[in-house]
């Protein structure tokens, strides 16, 4: 059976993340049902859906943090749930929704934790680890703050620190759960610009967003979820319609080119 699966159903395009028929349950409740999608290099995919649609659960299942009740999620042809955590982390950087920092660590140390899977030890970074951390700090415009304690940073600065942490891993894929939540519009654009730059350099990113205009502006593909199921997957031009807004969010909206306007609840 396992043989058959790996030959007939394996990710045809082995580079990138492939999810097929994923079902994720907690106790008796099914949170995600029959979810299939792909994430390839050079793509910025936005995962959209109302609260409770199962977006976070789907991401956790894709990263391999929860064992699926059915289906699989593979990176480079390996099941993420079975991969050694450090090997998986070198393929897939994951930015969860809750990002509490336990200690007032300096910015550079938090970013350096992105190199955990490469064996970096804080305080004595060498070679590739040091280069990757410096590059990530520079990419997120954090060099001036590198020595500052994270306890003294604003929300926007912290969001950049977490992005830099994810980029420092130098993993080909990035999965981010609401990276722009609770940020002001300027910082939302900054963070999305950072992710877009990561994709432009050959990365692939899957990002949960709640701002449709932002998704429309940045994403090359949109995945629409509701009630634990993926209802649509395609380019913004093809899938972002007033009917979709009504179906997914239950809102009345107007779409005019790249502009999205939500007028109110249905």
């Amino acid at each position, binding site marked *: 059976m396992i043989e058959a699966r790996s030959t007939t159903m394996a990710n045809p395009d082995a580079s990138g993340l492939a999810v097929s028929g994923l079902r994720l349950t907690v106790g008796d409740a099914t949170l995600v049902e029959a979810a299939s999608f792909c994430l390839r290099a050079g793509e910025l995919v936005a995962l959209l859906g109302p609260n409770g649609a199962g977006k976070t659960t789907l991401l956790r299942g894709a*990263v391999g*943090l929860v064992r699926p009740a059915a289906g699989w999620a593979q990176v480079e042809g390996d099941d993420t749930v079975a991969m*050694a*955590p*450090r*090997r*998986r*982390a*070198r393929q897939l*950087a*994951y*930015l*969860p929704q*809750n*990002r*509490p*920092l*336990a*200690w*007032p*660590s*300096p910015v550079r*140390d*938090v970013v350096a*934790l*992105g190199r*955990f*899977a490469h064996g970096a*030890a*804080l*305080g004595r970074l060498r070679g590739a680890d040091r280069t990757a951390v410096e590059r990530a700090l520079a990419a997120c415009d954090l060099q001036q703050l590198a020595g500052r*304690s994270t306890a003294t940073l604003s929300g926007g600065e912290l969001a950049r620190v977490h992005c830099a*942490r994810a980029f420092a*891993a130098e993993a080909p894929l990035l999965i981010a759960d609401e990276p722009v939540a609770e940020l002001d519009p300027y910082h939302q654009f900054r963070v999305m610009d950072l992710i877009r730059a990561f994709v432009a350099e050959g990365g692939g990113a899957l990002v949960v967003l709640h701002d449709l205009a932002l998704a429309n502006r940045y994403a090359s593909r949109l995945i629409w979820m509701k009630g634990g199921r993926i209802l649509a997957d395609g380019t913004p031009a093809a899938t972002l319609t007033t009917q979709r807004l009504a179906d997914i969010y239950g809102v009345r909206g107007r779409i005019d080119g790249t502009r999205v306007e939500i007028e109110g609840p249905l």
Partner: protein
Amino acid sequence: MLACLAALFAACLLGSTPLEAERVLAALFGQGAAGDQLVVVQIRLPRALTAFAVGAALGASGAALQGLLRNPLAEPGVLGVSAMAALAATGALYYGYAAASAWAMPTAAIAGALVGTTLIAFSALRTASAVTLILIGVGLSSFAGAAMNLLMNLAPNPFSLADMINWVLGSVANRSFLDLAFAAPFLIVGLGILFAARRGLSALTLGEEAASGVGLNLRQQRLLVVLGTGLATGAAVALAGVIGFVGIVAPHIVRPMVDHDPARSLLPSALLGGLILVLADIGIRLVPTVSELKLGVVAALIGAPAFIWIAMQRRSVHD
């Protein structure tokens, strides 16, 4: 490091029989009068080394638990781990196992510590709240304390009662190299495990979800820290009974000096914990009291206010 050596030497220097530094040095290197050697090598050195080992074990355990639970108030004493170890040790005393075999005491203490650490680690899975966790620790301490009181209440004779009180109060007086030798393997293995797991403690700074995201094997990390602190704390309790708060105070002082990195705080916390207890023990021997003060009592008298102070510094946003 140097301060530790100096303190250990000072601990050999001071005592009820006045000895000059040269005579102590000579005795330490196997020369000098037989009486000097007896006092220094047989009495003072083991006592000082015991204090250091216990302090180091508690300091490292505290730093590791704080890293695992992401909470500066976590510590074997506060979380009830020491009390569980002491309960098992008094149990071994009460039922006479301790007299039957020299291994009984360390084994019982370590088993008790492992039970306590496992309970705490399991509760930590179920709750994200530091307050809940500490309350569980308080409950565990109270239960172990009550059970120990019961054992003392039922003690068959005043001698075993005195023995048990010794464990509950915590002391390093009259320890021999033999006592140290029985606890040392557990202590060294425990500290070794903690040290091997130190990088995972840094990763946990990000929270458990993100730590697994950067490649930490959470289950293995929890197991290692539980095992390491259980062994080290158990060995410490087998040596000296319950000595609280060293595991809070030492890492608290160390943390700002190592950029709040739990991995880098491990070794300095162990050294500082050892230093604190050696100094405290010297203090005890210098203070002229009718009956000698117990180390655990003094540690709690200094440590508990420090604990309250640290707790009051915490902002509620962390919970």
